[in-house]
């Protein structure tokens, strides 16, 4: 029976191929959408861990999370150094990582921070940053590169780099007279850390020594040694990552910061802000999922139409089968088996397409969106989706199968052509 169906399919391979292709495309699309959605989510949640509070100038929680952790968008305002010192003085605070953003190096963000960054920053499953080579910055003009920065710009330890003011990729005024030296290169983390140039807070100040009101002072080129001798205490930072001695104190400290009188500050819990972010993104996610479900639906409709269109020219085949003893139930099963086979082949082809696309696209996505796509077998959600598609394929097959069943009953033995 099944060999009959397979032989019959092979006989009509070109139309069958169309149906398979339509299903394969929709399967590949829905799998890729699901994959990117999941990986985006996990890559976001993987980016920061072990940080109890993020503090920044007063704005929205999501905005603060985006610019401090994901380096998306810009800060509305800075935090003065006095406020930073006050936060550090809070007895419940264990450690503080200051973050100073606003400069760039060839399209990569420059991040001013302290040694705490290397000892306290955690990502993923509470993993700390590791060095692939070199060491944390020691001097004002030392820089530590994220893995992607070093790889894409082909930098080695000890190379000199020039940092520009502003965050664009090109056309910016370079701080040419204060070259930085690569003191360390980090191991890949799959987070925005990979795409940052880390310098000390003093380094950020040093870059701007000859700058007044956002423009370089004409003719001024203070030698590096002279700059080292200056007081490079930063006046402000962009954000703070705060670790507490006890998580139990988190709401008390958050409240203390949010009600700080000297300056309007905002302290957020990263997890809560992420949740807020998801709520924002969910609409888009749902829309994306909706579109892929529509594509799957279109693929199934195509399957039905291919089978239905083939039915008329197959009436002869049905009549021969009937005259050779096949019952209408056989014909029904034949058509159902056919649609399930087509769907199954479509699913397998779709998976192949999906993994191929992921393998090819992963590098591009990593470079352009900083999103690391992981290679993984389909998980339970995926299997559920694939199972649902298969069942839908079976049901889609019953429509032409019923048609064939009825036709085989009414045609009887007459050979309608």
């Amino acid at each position: 029976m099944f060999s009959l169906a397979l032989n019959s399919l092979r006989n009509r391979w070109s139309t069958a191929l169309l149906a398979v292709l339509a299903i394969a495309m929709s399967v590949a699309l829905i799998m890729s959408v699901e994959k990117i959605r999941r990986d985006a989510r996990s890559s976001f949640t993987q980016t920061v861990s072990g940080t109890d509070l993020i503090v920044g100038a007063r704005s929205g929680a999501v905005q603060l999370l985006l610019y401090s952790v994901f380096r998306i968008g810009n800060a509305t305002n800075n935090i003065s150094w006095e406020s930073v010192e006050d936060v550090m003085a809070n007895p419940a605070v264990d450690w503080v990582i200051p973050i100073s953003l606003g400069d760039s190096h060839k399209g990569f963000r420059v991040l001013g921070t302290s040694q705490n960054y290397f000892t306290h920053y955690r990502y993923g499953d509470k993993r700390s940053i590791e060095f692939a080579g070199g060491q944390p910055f020691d001097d004002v003009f030392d820089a530590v590169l994220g893995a992607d920065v070093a790889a894409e710009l082909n930098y080695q330890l000890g190379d000199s780099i020039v940092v520009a003011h502003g965050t664009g990729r090109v056309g910016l005024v370079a701080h040419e007279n204060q070259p930085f030296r690569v003191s360390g290169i980090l191991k890949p983390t799959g987070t925005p850390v990979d795409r940052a140039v880390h310098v000390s807070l003093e380094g950020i100040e040093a870059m701007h020594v000859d700058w007044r009101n956002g423009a370089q002072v004409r003719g001024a080129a203070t030698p590096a040694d002279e700059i080292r001798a200056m007081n490079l205490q930063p006046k402000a930072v962009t954000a703070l990552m705060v670790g507490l001695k006890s998580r139990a104190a988190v709401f008390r400290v958050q409240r203390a910061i949010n009600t700080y009188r000297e300056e309007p500050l905002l302290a957020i819990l990263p997890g809560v802000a992420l949740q807020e972010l998801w709520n924002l993104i969910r609409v888009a996610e749902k829309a994306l999922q909706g579109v892929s479900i529509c594509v799957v639906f279109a693929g199934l409709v195509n399957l039905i139409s291919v089978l239905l269109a083939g039915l008329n020219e197959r009436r002869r085949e049905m009549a021969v089968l009937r005259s050779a003893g096949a019952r209408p139930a056989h014909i029904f099963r034949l058509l159902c088996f056919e649609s399930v086979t087509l769907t199954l082949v479509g699913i397998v082809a779709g998976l192949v397409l999906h993994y191929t696309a992921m393998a090819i696209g992963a590098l591009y996505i990593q470079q352009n969106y900083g999103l690391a796509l992981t290679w993984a077998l389909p998980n339970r959600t995926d299997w559920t989706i694939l199972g649902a598609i298969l069942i839908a394929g079976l049901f889609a097959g019953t429509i032409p199968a019923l048609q064939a069943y009825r036709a085989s009953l009414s045609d009887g033995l007459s050979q309608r052509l």
Partner: protein
Amino acid sequence: MNPTSPMVALNQVRYQWPNGKQPVLSIDDFSIDASERVFLQGPSGSGKTTLLSLIAAVLTPQSGSIHVDGCELNSLRGGQRDQFRVDHIGLVFQQFNLLPFLSVKDNIQLPCRFSKARLAKVTDSGKSLNEETERLLVAMQLSPEKINEVSVSNLSVGQQQRVAVARALIGRPPLIIADEPTSALDSDTREAFIKLLFDEADAAQCAVLFVSHDASLASVFDRKLNLREINSAQIS
């Protein structure tokens, strides 16, 4: 099977199409004996195919009874009718009898896939299914190498019809119904075709109901009749 009872017996049969105003068939008494060859003639539209469909248990008459091989067809339901057909009747049509995606062998063996009874008859004779298929091919004057021919569309129409006869005969069903099997053949091959059909029907001891509008073939049959002689329905 009682050898004295007829292979096919129709009694007071009336049939009309679901949307028809009057019966197309009205046969009071018609029978075919076991191993008898009957030539049924009639112009197109006279209800020949309808009669064959009734005997083959595809259609059910509104009234009257039809017995085939001692079995009252009206007592059979849906699937039983299909099973009865494949177990007892070999069918040959005018043209396009074969499935283009099956090999010659698979086409011939098709009824044995659906009928355990016919498969059993083959194996009871001490032959394997392939041996019997080959024997039938030779009997139909087709070279046995053709058995593995992948595409039946490579065969001539005459060869295709002979393959169809081989399929109708495999497993020796007691009744062969042939609905204008020769109309696509030229006159030379027609008679040879009928001779081959009869030789094998003799060997298998089966009755043959042969329908054609070509009266020139009738002479070789045991009995020749015109549908108008037995059908009292008025065809407009």
